[in-house]
């Protein structure tokens, strides 16, 4: 086992950063896309996230004590997105585009129904408070578990579990309400 107190060579750090980048580019991009709602800002946010991660990579590795760094990356993206909105004093200007491939629709009618349902869900996600929306993005778009989400949001595991449960319930309520209005 490597001695954790021995500083790594720069080449080794760069190699490991390169691996981190390749492993999580899609995660960071997905998070950014659902957070800001458009591809242009999502690309900027992803770029800034990796540049900032690169600057602090060595320290993050030291302090993570071998734990996965995905929550740390997402936390960087989360903070940068918050700054973006603070600077522009706005929320996403347009609804999130639905770029989801549908799962084996059998008929045109089913396809339309499924598309509408997914669209209602996406719109509902946007209506959630920020922390609930982010927790759902991390869980369902990135497949993060409670512990990872807790680390990314700076909360306890228990509080995160409650947050996700309430977010799903609230979203279900919004979607059902929208469906009954149609």
């Amino acid at each position: 086992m490597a001695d954790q107190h021995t500083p790594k060579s720069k080449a080794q750090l760069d190699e490991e950063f390169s691996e981190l980048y390749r492993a999580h580019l899609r995660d960071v991009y997905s998070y950014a896309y659902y957070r800001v709602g458009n591809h242009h800002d999502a690309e900027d946010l992803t770029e800034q996230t990796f540049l900032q991660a690169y600057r602090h990579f060595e320290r993050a590795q030291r302090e993570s004590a071998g734990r996965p760094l995905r929550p740390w990356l997402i936390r960087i993206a989360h903070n940068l997105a918050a700054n973006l909105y603070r600077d522009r004093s706005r929320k996403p200007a347009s609804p999130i585009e639905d770029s989801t491939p549908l799962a084996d629709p059998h008929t045109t009618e089913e396809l339309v129904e499924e598309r509408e349902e997914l669209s209602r869900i996406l719109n509902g996600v946007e209506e959630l408070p920020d922390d609930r929306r982010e927790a759902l993005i991390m869980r369902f778009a990135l497949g993060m578990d409670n512990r990872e989400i807790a680390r990314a949001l700076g909360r306890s595991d228990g509080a995160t579990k409650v947050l996700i449960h309430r977010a799903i319930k609230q979203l279900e309520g919004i979607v059902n309400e929208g469906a009954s209005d149609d």
Partner: protein
Amino acid sequence: MTEAASSSNFEGLLRQALAPVEPPEDLAQRLESTLTSLTELAVGELEAWELSAMRDPRNWVRPAAAVVVGSTAGVALVLLRARRRIS
């Protein structure tokens, strides 16, 4: 339908609605390009720095930071390019 089944179904739909989004192909190129720019900026910083200013130790921090940014970004860039060639 039971509440558990309904909840599970809703989570399935939620998973579909929030499917992972593939980054555009040119994003990796943009990232590399940004790292290259950082490297060039760092070199420029050093070249533009007047040697006379270096007599004052208070001015040493900025060029030293430029060296760090330039060299680290450069190596990362080479690694990313090498990886892309392999894959």
